[in-house]
């Protein structure tokens, strides 16, 4: 007696985008009821495989089978949907439609001819309540915060009732509490025998949730193994192809970098800075060579604080000074001129011009330095782009490739490159490593550290402990207030507790 056929089985899948080979004869098998992790560096081909498995892209070669039957014809999306549901890495909401409509897009009601909006709203309300998301279903999707939008997409995918669900980096935009809620849901579904394909750059999540793991590297299959049989170091080695890749998360004060000079004039100083309903008046001082962490979940107001520093939001009161000079609030050009570089949270909305090339995106803030008298010299742009591609290890065909053709993590690196292009004296980074693979994460954080070590100030806004580890000082925010301050060398548990609002210290 043979066992049940695999929930999904892909064999020899090849996918090319022009000269790029995104998948080179890869395979993947997910057993029924199994939670299978797919890991690999940025650009390894994970999301491409997801689009092939969900019928969005047609593979150039190879076969896909669901439960032993060959996949539906390409283009018959409805047939694919009955087999597989998916949370895509890029946003798949329609910004001008309401949350309720986005949740039930194209599957409003099977038996009724007319859509009943009242009923739809109530269904949406129940679905959202189930995920603890507090949004009015009649809000338009464009008005949602990043995390809320992510939950809308997750709730939508999970509500299909499919036996196989793909999650492409669902946690990259969630804070710890959100991840907890998501995992709770996933475990419930696991108990019902639903199979998962789970993609993440957080290996601890893989260990927490999954039973088997597949590693891709450079568009090829490297290994598949039960999670229990493989140590984290081995996994990282398989992803990077280097044995020595120890988990060297960055630490402040290592490498004999000079400790920030206490007596130096602060580079960045805020006095009574506040935004109504987001965070309370806040005095900050960041000295040359210092990396300041602002830890807190999405609801803590730290993202709003970052946006205010970068000029994306107008402050309700208070001042921001860089090198003692006041910066006009609510104006990005003034913030840029004052030397504030910004890495935004939402790379699609605020970060990138997707159809333009890597070179143009990376140099968007420095067009005035690329040639005399307002000209932009292509040679200089290219040269500049080449240097950032090399220094940040961006995987691209070249400076001319449109950003839309980069993998998610590599897009994030272009955003970082642009913030660094102006050699800012203050770097404000909101979750700079969201969606970035383990190795690149190290190098990105290294870059932030280097910016500070050159005598500038850096502010990292995040709830990821790895991001915060490079900081010399971490302020924990909760509901718009600083609830605790930590010097480097803090203890994980205490910081997490402070971010969640327990154990206030001050």
């Amino acid at each position: 007696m043979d066992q049940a056929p695999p929930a999904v089985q892909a064999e020899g899948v090849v996918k090319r985008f022009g000269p790029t080979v995104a998948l080179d004869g890869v395979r993947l098998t997910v057993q029924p009821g199994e939670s299978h992790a797919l890991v690999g560096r940025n650009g390894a081909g994970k999301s491409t495989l997801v689009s092939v498995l969900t019928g969005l892209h047609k593979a150039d070669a190879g076969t896909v089978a669901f439960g032993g039957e060959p996949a539906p014809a390409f283009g018959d999306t409805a047939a694919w949907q009955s087999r597989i549901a998916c949370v895509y890495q890029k946003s798949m909401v329609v910004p001008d439609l309401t949350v309720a409509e986005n949740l039930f897009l194209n599957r409003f009601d099977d038996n009724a001819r007319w859509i009943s909006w009242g009923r739809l709203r109530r269904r949406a309300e129940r679905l959202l309540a189930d995920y603890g998301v507090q949004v009015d279903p009649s809000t338009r999707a464009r008005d949602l915060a990043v995390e809320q939008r992510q939950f809308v997409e997750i709730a939508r995918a999970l509500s299909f009732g499919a036996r196989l669900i793909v999650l492409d980096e669902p946690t990259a935009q969630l804070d710890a509490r959100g991840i907890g809620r998501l995992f709770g849901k996933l475990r419930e579904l696991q108990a019902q025998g639903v199979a998962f394909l789970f993609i993440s750059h957080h290996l601890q999540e893989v260990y927490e949730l999954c039973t088997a793991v597949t590693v891709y590297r450079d568009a090829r299959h490297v290994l598949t193994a039960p999670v229990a049989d493989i140590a984290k170091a081995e996994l990282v080695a398989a992803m990077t192809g280097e044995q020595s890749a120890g988990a060297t998360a960055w630490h402040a004060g290592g490498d004999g970098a000079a400790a920030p000079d206490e007596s130096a004039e602060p580079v960045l100083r805020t006095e009574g800075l506040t935004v109504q309903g987001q965070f309370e008046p806040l005095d900050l001082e960041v000295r040359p060579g210092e990396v300041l962490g602002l830890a807190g979940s999405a609801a803590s107001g730290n993202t709003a604080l970052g946006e205010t520093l970068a000029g994306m939001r107008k402050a309700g009161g208070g001042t921001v000074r860089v090198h003692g000079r006041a910066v006009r609030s609510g104006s990005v050009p003034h913030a840029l001129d004052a030397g504030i570089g910004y890495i935004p949270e939402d790379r699609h909305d605020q970060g990138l011009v997707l159809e333009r090339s890597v070179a143009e995106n990376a140099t968007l803030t420095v067009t005035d330095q690329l040639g005399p008298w307002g000209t932009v010299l292509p040679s200089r742009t290219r040269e500049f782009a080449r240097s950032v591609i090399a220094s940040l290890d961006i995987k691209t065909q070249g400076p001319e490739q449109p950003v839309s053709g980069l993998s998610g993590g590599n897009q994030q690196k272009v955003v970082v490159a642009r913030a660094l292009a102006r050699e800012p004296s203050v770097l404000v980074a909101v979750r700079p490593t969201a969606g970035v693979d383990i190795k690149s994460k190290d190098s990105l954080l290294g870059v932030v550290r280097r910016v500070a070590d050159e005598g500038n100030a850096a502010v990292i806004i995040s709830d990821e402990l790895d991001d915060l580890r490079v900081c010399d000082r971490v302020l924990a925010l909760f509901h718009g207030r600083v609830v605790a301050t930590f010097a480097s060398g803090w203890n994980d548990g205490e910081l997490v507790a402070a971010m969640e609002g327990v154990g206030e210290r001050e």
Partner: protein
Amino acid sequence: MTGTVRPLAADGIDSGPKGSPAGERPLDRLKLIRWSDFSLVPVILVLMLIGFIVSPVFLTSENLISVVQQSSELSLLVLGQALILICGRMDLSLESTIGIAPVVAMWLVLPSEGGRFAGLGLLPTWSAIPLCLLVGLAIGAVNGFLMLKLRVNGFIATLGMLTMLRGLHIGITEGKSITDVPESFRYLGKSEWLGAPAAVWICLALFAVGGAALAWLRHGRSLYAIGGNPEAARAAGIRVDRVTWIVLAIGGLLAAFAGILYTGHYGSVAATQGNGWIFQVFAAAVIGGISLKGGRGTLFGALTGVLTLQLVVNVMTLGGVPALWNQFLNGAIIIVALVISRFASGEKQD
């Protein structure tokens, strides 16, 4: 693998008695209405007041009926264009379709001798209307083929169609007007139902049907998803290309129908029928709150856009603006109407 698990939430809970919208609070309903769709209603009222002040003729039923009659053909083009724009596409060739579709139909049915215009006389006269509609449908389908199968730029492709069809029109008619209009065209264009021109009722009915489909039908809603985020629409199982193609064909069909009404109303097809209309069509759509980038706007808004535009023109005419200044005013009117609607709705236009 076809079995499904019990979904986590919501689905299936709606097992209560059918058609009992329990807990439907009126306030919720109010919240669902997008007020910006109605923003032109006060503007229209103000225009009517101004019209009344400018000229006592304005509020007579003849004048008002002539305004709506003149709006009816334009509004059908706007209806088609609005559907296409909501899908995130555009079709410039509508303004030529309104002329070429009746011309081709008449060319095929009119006898080859006897009349001033020598047709082919291939088909019976009763087939004029179906033929005309078919031509419109075919033009829309060709546009769809160019944009969706060949993936050429829609703006330029339909601009090419516009010019080409205009040329075809002139070629077939040798630049002259056709006055031997079939009786069926005349009937639709001229007759009155319940005291108002039939064309007006037909237009209203078509807008109502279209509006209801966009608001309450799955396929109607899919237009917004396609225009708003085509990838998300595709991932949600909407057949983006098929729906867009159908919408383009419907656009052509509506333009052909507008051609029938127009031809019937004036009793002839001029060589310039529809010439320059596309500007008004786009203007009315945008004034009515339809986004040129797709995914936004309603048919009600589009209809108020048409009415606003026509009322301003009417008020100007009644005000006795000299004809030589018409073109200047046409441009100025559109800009003014655009600005008014921008601020009346409080939404950015794009």
